[in-house]
């Protein structure tokens, strides 16, 4: 064991002496690995960022909530037209679930559109107007910063009241308390009951704070027909009961929509899980393609290392002869050159990470990411592996040299 350690130490010393002796050449060769590691780590960081952004957004969907809709979140292959022609999900179905379901804790119909919102002289354009039942807070998991959400009575009765998102509140009421004030949504007057806590954005696309929530029955009177398509959020009593709830809701919906036993479902019951699965499929493909393309540059770097190691072996043929003459076995020579190429690549990997780190901070400004420690470790490991793989052929050739020929080499 001790012998192996000494041999390793000797190999290390030789490797660094050789690298130091050919500084310029080493730097240029390493450059290929540096570029490879930079691109691979940045790709890894970006993919990680995408995952984190997704997971953060997806958490807002809630793991114990079902979303009844016409459209499924999963891949629907070629039956697009069939789904398009399904009957809309209507308020009646929400009422039926509420009435018959034993597993559901809260049921909340939701729909939405975009309108301009005005308070006094101030205007916010293109705000997302959500028409919702009274159980938005329960089913969405969002919270109210101050004020109160509307009651079931207000929701069913269609009173002109609303709750506003934090961004809308900041734009319309920079120096005022919004509670009790009247705003105009698409020309109709509403009284502000409450302001939501800041929520951020969904998938980095749509702000969840640039929203106004109004009772769904009021929404149907002023913005959209009550026959239009809805989404029904059903919160299960617990995550464990989610599957039971789903089966129960499915039964209730089939009955409510008058489906015959052999008819297929003409609605979809979505859940967080569906979206995660869809994303994982897409994300996996993006990651594989991205890493493959950036991996190419690492591969090219590896070829550079192999090339220079062949040069190094040829240059040091005589040294190999001397070492063999005084008793170095093949393994030792092999190890020596493998360590040299691994060290070259490791240096490249370290430089690559040092360069990639500040760039990852720039990526962080638009994707919530930081270079994860795992990517750093994997990058270093990969660079060592590249070194060993690309150094193997030259090292093997060195180890097989005939000592007599090697000693005679000029």
């Amino acid at each position, binding site marked *: 064991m001790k*012998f192996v350690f000494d041999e390793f130490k000797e190999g290390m010393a030789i490797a660094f002496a050789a690298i130091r002796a050919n500084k310029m050449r080493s730097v240029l060769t390493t450059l290929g690995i540096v570029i490879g590691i930079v691109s691979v780590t940045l790709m890894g960081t970006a993919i990680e960022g995408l995952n984190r952004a997704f997971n953060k957004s997806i958490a807002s969907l809630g793991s114990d909530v079902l979303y009844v809709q016409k459209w499924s979140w999963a891949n629907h292959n070629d039956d697009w037209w069939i789904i398009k022609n399904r009957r809309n999900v209507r308020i009646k179905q929400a009422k039926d679930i509420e009435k018959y379901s034993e597993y559901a804790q809260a049921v909340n119909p939701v729909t939405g559109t975009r309108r301009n919102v005005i308070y006094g002289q101030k205007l916010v354009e293109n705000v997302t107007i959500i028409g919702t039942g009274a159980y938005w807070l329960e089913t969405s998991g969002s919270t109210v910063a101050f004020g109160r959400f509307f009651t079931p009575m207000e929701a069913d009765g269609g009173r002109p009241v609303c709750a506003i998102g934090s961004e809308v509140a900041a734009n319309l009421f920079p120096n005022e308390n919004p509670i009790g004030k009247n705003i105009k949504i698409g020309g109709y007057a509403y009284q502000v009951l409450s302001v939501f806590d800041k929520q951020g954005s969904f998938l980095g696309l749509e702000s969840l704070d640039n929203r106004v929530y109004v009772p769904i029955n009021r929404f149907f009177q002023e913005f959209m027909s009550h026959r239009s398509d809805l989404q029904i959020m059903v919160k299960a009593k617990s995550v464990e009961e989610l599957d039971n709830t789903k089966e129960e809701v499915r039964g209730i919906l089939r009955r409510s929509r008058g489906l015959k036993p052999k008819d297929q479902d003409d609605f979809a019951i979505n859940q967080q899980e569906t979206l995660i699965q869809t994303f994982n499929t897409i994300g996996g493909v993006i990651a594989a393609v991205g890493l493959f393309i950036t991996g190419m540059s690492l591969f090219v770097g590896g070829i550079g290392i192999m090339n220079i190691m062949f040069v190094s072996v040829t240059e040091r043929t005589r040294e190999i002869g001397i070492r063999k003459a005084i008793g170095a*076995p*093949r393994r030792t020579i092999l190890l020596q050159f493998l360590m040299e190429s691994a060290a070259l690549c490791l240096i490249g990997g370290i430089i690559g990470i040092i360069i990639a780190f500040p760039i990852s901070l720039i990526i962080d400004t638009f994707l919530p990411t930081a270079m994860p420690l795992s990517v750093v470790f994997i990058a270093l490991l990969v660079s060592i592996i590249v070194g060993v793989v690309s150094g193997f052929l030259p090292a093997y050739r060195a180890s097989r040299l005939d*000592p*007599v020929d090697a000693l005679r080499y000029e």
Partner: protein
Amino acid sequence: MPSIIQLTNITKIYQVGEEKVHALDGVSIQIQKNEYVAIMGPSGSGKSTLMNIIGCLDTPTSGLYELNNINVSDMNDNQLAKIRNKEIGFVFQTFNLLARSDVLHNVELPLIYGGVGSMERKKLARAAIERVGLTDRIHHKPNELSGGQRQRVSVARALVTHPSILLADEPTGNLDTKTGDEIMMLFDTLHKEGNTIILVTHEEDIALHAHRRIRLRDGKMEVDEPIKNRKVFTQPTIVMA
């Protein structure tokens, strides 16, 4: 007295293009412990091939080579490396030191490959360096040393494992006469101390240091005789110049 080296009917055939060249053609030699042998011959006589085979750098095409009663003629590369490490100390014409390593590390190297621990290694290496009188140059690189000093480093490297034979290939070939004589005096002393020395040379007066002369011609043994008019130095112990 047991033979250290027992060569029986050694042949070595090289394929050069279409032609087969008999570099060695049925050579048999026995060398006893503490002998001092000069192997001579013109170029092309096969003396380098013989030296390579004795030094376990190469294996014979046919014939038997026993070193310390161990048959080494059909050993593989790694087994031969081990034998070279333990049993043979090489001194080359061109010194063959590692240019980037200092004296101590050069001398240590065979012990590293022999698996000797660090402390023990340093001790043995220092002793060998002291033996050739280079203690004050221990951290010098080869290019900071004179030719004679370099050759003494390579002698120290050859000695450090206490090998069965010292195999010197034209050890004075790259040195001026005075320094060459100093190196030869060092060999004489080492022989007196009980080492077995094989000297490959084409210079008559270098060969005169040995006790026995083997002369090769065209791959065959021509002469194998004791040397009568040996070159004796008046003060063979003054070698630490």
